[in-house]
C-alpha cells in the first residue's frame, strides 16, 4: 500500500491516490462523496487517512448532499473537495448550478470522474459540458503526477476566482498508475466561519439576476487566467498542429511524430487567444479528445471569429470516433494527416470457441437467493423487473434475468410505479441498501402517495458493495473519529406508512418465495427487505464463517434445480453430477434450500 502521508520521495501511485495526495498537499480540510467508479478509491483512502491528514471526510447519502456539505464548507473559508462519478454529477447538478451564482470563499473542487467506454457505468456522458452550462472553470489532468500537481493549482485558481472548479478526470487517469514525486504537505484548515452575505448566498430572483452578471464577469476573468495558465502549453514542432487534453495527450505525445502540440489542462474557459495564435501559420489542426467534440467545436468557432482558414480535423471530419475511450490504436484514424508510429501486426483472434466470462455475482451472494425467490413467486405471471445500480445489476444475466429496466440510482422504484400505473403488468423494483438511502425513499413515498401497486425489494447487504464496501446510513459510521447509529430500514418504511413490510433471510429461499408471493398479491405498496450481509464484507472483517457442504450423490435426482435457480459459481456440474468447489463455497445453504430431495447438506 502506498503511503500518502509520507514526507517526500516518489511512489508508484494510482491516479486516484495521486489526487488524494494532492488534497493533502493543498491543505484541504473537508471532503465528501457518494462512491462511484472510477472515483471510488479516493473515498476508500480518505476513510482510512483523513483524520491523520487533519481533514474531515464523509460518505454523504448521495452526490447532491455531498455537493451541498462541501459547498457550505467552502463558503465558510474551508478548502473542500467533492467527488463523484460522472452520472453522480447529474444528481448534484441542481446545487452546483446555483452555487456557481453564489461562489465560494475557500477553494472548492468538484471532481467528476467520467467513464468513456462505460467500464463500470450506464452511459458515457461527457461532463465537460457541465462547465460551460454552469459557467465554472474546469481543469483536466493527463497523468497521475500532473493530477496531483494540478489539484494545488486548481485550488489557487478556485480561490482567485471565488468559484468552485470542476476537476474532470476519466477512467484512464483515475485508474492509471505512474511514478509520482511527492511535494510538501500543507496544514489543513478544518474549521472556518460563515460570514453572512444575503445578496450573494440567497439567490432569490432579485439577487440571482445580479449574481448572473457577477458570474459572467468572473467567467471573463477565468478566461484571462486560462490564457496565462502554465497548464496550457505548447511543445514539439511541425506545421501540423494537434490540440489535445486529458489522457489523449499521452497517446499523442508518445506515438505522434513531427507535430506541434498544444496541450490543454485548463479547459474551461479555453485560452482562445492562445489557441488562435497556435493555429496561425499551421497547415492543418487536429483536435484529439475523447467523447464529444467539446474542444473541437470551440476551435472551429475560434477559427471563424479570427478569420483563420486552416482545416480542423477530428470528430466532425470523421477522422476520430465520438464513442468509446481512445487508445494508441485510435491514432490510426489520423495517419493520413500526421506521422503516427507504426504498430506491430496483432495476432489474429483464436478460432477456438472461448467461454464467456462476464462479471458475475459472487459465490454465496445473498442476491442470488432473492432473485430466485422473486422469479419463483412470479411464476408465469407477467412481471417487469425494475433494477438499479449496484452488484444486483448483474441479476440481468441468466438464469435470473431479473432486470428489465435500469436507468439510474433509485430509478427502478420510480419506474416501477410508472409501469404499475401505465400497464397491466406487475412491477417489482430491486434496490440495494445504499441506493435506498441515496434515491430510493422518494419513489417509495411517491408510490404510496399515488397508490401505485408495486413491490419494492431492498437488498440490504449492509454495505455499498459494488464500489468497494463503503459504509452507508443503514450501517452507521465508524471512522474518522465519528460514530453514528445505523438507521433501520424497516422502521423507516413503516414510519412513512407502508402497510406491507417484511424482512426475510434470502438464504432461506423457500420462505422468501412465500413472502414474495404475498407481496405480489398485496393491493398496494409492498416492501420486502432482504437482510443478509455481503460475504465479501464479512470476509474483510474476518467474520465470515465458512461451512462445508456435501452432496449425497445417491439422493441427488439430477433435476439441477440448484444450478438453474441459484447458479452459484461454487456449484459444479461435471459429467452430470453436482459437486461444490470448496475453494469458493462459503456454505450459505441456498442450494441446499432449493434441493427437492435434501441431497445437499451444509455441515453444522
Amino acid at each position, binding site marked *: 500500500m502506498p503511503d500518502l502521508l509520507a514526507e517526500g520521495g*516518489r511512489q*508508484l501511485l494510482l491516479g486516484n491516490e495521486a489526487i488524494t495526495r494532492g488534497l493533502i498537499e493543498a491543505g484541504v480540510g473537508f471532503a465528501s462523496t457518494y462512491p462511484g*467508479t*472510477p472515483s*471510488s478509491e479516493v473515498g476508500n483512502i480518505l476513510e482510512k487517512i483523513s483524520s491523520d491528514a487533519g481533514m474531515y471526510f464523509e460518505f454523504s447519502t448521495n452526490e447532491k448532499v455531498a455537493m451541498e456539505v462541501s459547498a457550505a464548507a467552502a463558503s465558510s473559508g474551508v478548502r473542500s473537495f467533492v467527488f463523484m462519478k460522472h452520472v453522480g454529477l447529474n444528481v448534484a447538478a441542481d446545487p452546483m448550478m446555483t452555487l456557481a451564482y453564489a461562489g465560494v470563499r475557500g477553494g472548492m473542487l468538484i471532481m467528476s470522474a467520467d467513464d468513456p467506454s462505460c*467500464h*463500470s457505468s450506464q452511459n458515457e456522458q461527457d461532463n465537460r459540458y457541465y462547465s460551460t452550462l454552469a459557467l465554472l472553470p474546469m481543469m483536466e489532468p493527463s*497523468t497521475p503526477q500532473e493530477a496531483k500537481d494540478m489539484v494545488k493549482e486548481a485550488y489557487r485558481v478556485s480561490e482567485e476566482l471565488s468559484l468552485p472548479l470542476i476537476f474532470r478526470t476519466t477512467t*484512464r487517469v483515475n*485508474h*492509471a*498508475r*505512474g*511514478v509520482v514525486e511527492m511535494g510538501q504537505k500543507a496544514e489543513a484548515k478544518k474549521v472556518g466561519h460563515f460570514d453572512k452575505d444575503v445578496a450573494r448566498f440567497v439567490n432569490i430572483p432579485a439577487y440571482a439576476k445580479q449574481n448572473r452578471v457577477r458570474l459572467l464577469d468572473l467567467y471573463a476573468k477565468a478566461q484571462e487566467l486560462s490564457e496565462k495558465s502554465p497548464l496550457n502549453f505548447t511543445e514539439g514542432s511541425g506545421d501540423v498542429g494537434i490540440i489535445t487534453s486529458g*489522457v489523449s495527450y*499521452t*497517446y499523442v*505525445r*508518445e*506515438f505522434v511524430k513531427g507535430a506541434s502540440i498544444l496541450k490543454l489542462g485548463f479547459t474551461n474557459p479555453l485560452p482562445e487567444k492562445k489557441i488562435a495564435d497556435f493555429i496561425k501559420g499551421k497547415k492543418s489542426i487536429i483536435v484529439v479528445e475523447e467523447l464529444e467534440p467539446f474542444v473541437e467545436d470551440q476551435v472551429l468557432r475560434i477559427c471563424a471569429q479570427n478569420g483563420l482558414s486552416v482545416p480542423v480535423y477530428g470528430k466532425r471530419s470523421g477522422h476520430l470516433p465520438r464513442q468509446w475511450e481512445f*487508445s*494508441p*490504436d485510435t491514432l490510426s484514424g489520423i495517419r493520413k494527416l500526421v506521422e503516427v508510429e507504426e*504498430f*506491430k*501486426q*496483432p*495476432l*489474429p*483472434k*483464436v*478460432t*477456438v*470457441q*472461448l*467461454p*464467456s*466470462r*462476464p*462479471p*458475475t*455475482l*459472487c459465490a454465496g451472494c445473498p442476491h442470488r437467493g432473492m432473485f430466485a425467490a422473486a422469479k419463483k413467486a412470479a411464476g408465469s405471471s407477467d412481471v417487469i423487473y425494475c433494477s438499479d445500480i449496484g*452488484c444486483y445489476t*448483474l441479476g440481468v444475466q*441468466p*438464469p435470473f434475468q431479473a432486470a428489465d429496466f435500469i436507468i439510474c440510482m433509485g430509478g427502478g422504484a420510480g419506474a416501477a410505479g410508472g409501469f404499475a400505473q401505465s400497464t397491466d403488468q406487475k412491477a417489482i423494483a430491486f434496490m440495494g441498501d445504499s441506493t435506498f438511502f441515496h434515491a430510493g425513499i422518494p419513489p417509495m413515498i411517491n408510490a404510496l402517495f399515488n397508490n401505485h401497486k408495486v413491490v419494492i425489494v431492498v437488498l440490504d447487504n449492509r454495505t455499498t458493495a*459494488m*464500489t468497494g464496501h463503503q459504509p452507508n446510513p443503514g450501517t452507521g459510521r465508524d471512522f474518522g473519529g465519528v460514530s453514528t447509529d445505523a438507521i433501520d430500514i424497516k422502521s423507516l418504511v413503516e414510519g412513512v406508512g407502508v402497510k406491507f413490510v417484511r424482512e426475510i433471510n434470502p438464504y432461506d429461499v423457500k420462505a422468501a418465495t412465500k413472502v414474495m408471493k404475498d407481496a405480489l398479491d398485496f393491493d398496494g405498496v409492498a416492501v420486502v427487505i432482504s437482510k443478509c450481509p455481503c460475504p465479501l464484507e464479512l470476509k474483510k472483517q474476518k467474520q465470515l464463517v465458512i461451512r462445508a457442504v456435501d452432496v449425497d450423490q445417491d439422493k441427488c435426482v439430477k433435476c*439441477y434445480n440448484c*444450478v*438453474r435457480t441459484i*447458479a*452459484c*459459481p*461454487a*456449484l*459444479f*456440474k461435471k459429467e452430470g453430477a453436482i459437486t461444490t*468447489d470448496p475453494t469458493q463455497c462459503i456454505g450459505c445453504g441456498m442450494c441446499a434450500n432449493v434441493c427437492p430431495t435434501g441431497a445437499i447438506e451444509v455441515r453444522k
Partner: protein
Amino acid sequence: MKYTVQIVGVGGQGVLLASMVLGNAAMEQGYKVVMSEVHGMAQRGGSVLSTLRFGDDVISPLEAAGSADLIMGFEPAETCRNLPLGNKDTVVLMNLDPVLPSMVAAGFEEYPDIESLTGAVSAVNKNLYTLDATKIAIEAGKAVAANAVMIGAVAAMKGFPIPKDALLKSLMDQVPEKFRDLNVKAFEMGYSAMSS
C-alpha cells in the same frame, strides 16, 4: 528502451498485485513506469487486464494492440482471448490451470481442452511458455500464491529487463509480512519451473 507487459486473468487471481510487483521493481530500476488497471464491476469474477509499460520514455497508460512484449496469462482461456494484444514475437507465458466461468461450472457452456488452447497460441506464436502455476502454488502452500509463481517464472525469462533479485525484493515489499515466506517459496518454484 520500452517494454510492455499485458497481464490477463480473472478477477480475484491477483493480477493487480502482480502488476504492482513488476511496476515497483521497474521503478526501482530507474525506469519510467505507467500502468492501467481495471477496477470496479469487472472484478466480480470477470476478465481482467492490467497493462504495465516501462522504459526510458513512456507516458501512455495503454499500449497499441499487437505491441505487447510479454503477455502474462494467469488463465488459459483469458490468455487466448487476449492474444491480439501480442504479435508473432511476443513472449506468452500461460498458466495452464483454468478458472471455470460460472456458466461453464453450471454446465451451460463448455470449457475447451487445454491442448486446444495451447495449440491455438503455438500455431501463431513460437514463444509460448506454459506452467501449472496454480498447482505449483498449492504445492508451495496456497493457491492464492499463483501470482508469485507467475512472477518467479517471468524472472526466469531470457531477456526480461528486470533482474530476479529486484523482482523478489519488490514481491516481498508488496505482500503482507505473514505471507512473505509462502510468496518467496512460490516465487522460487515458479523460477525453477521456468528455468528447467
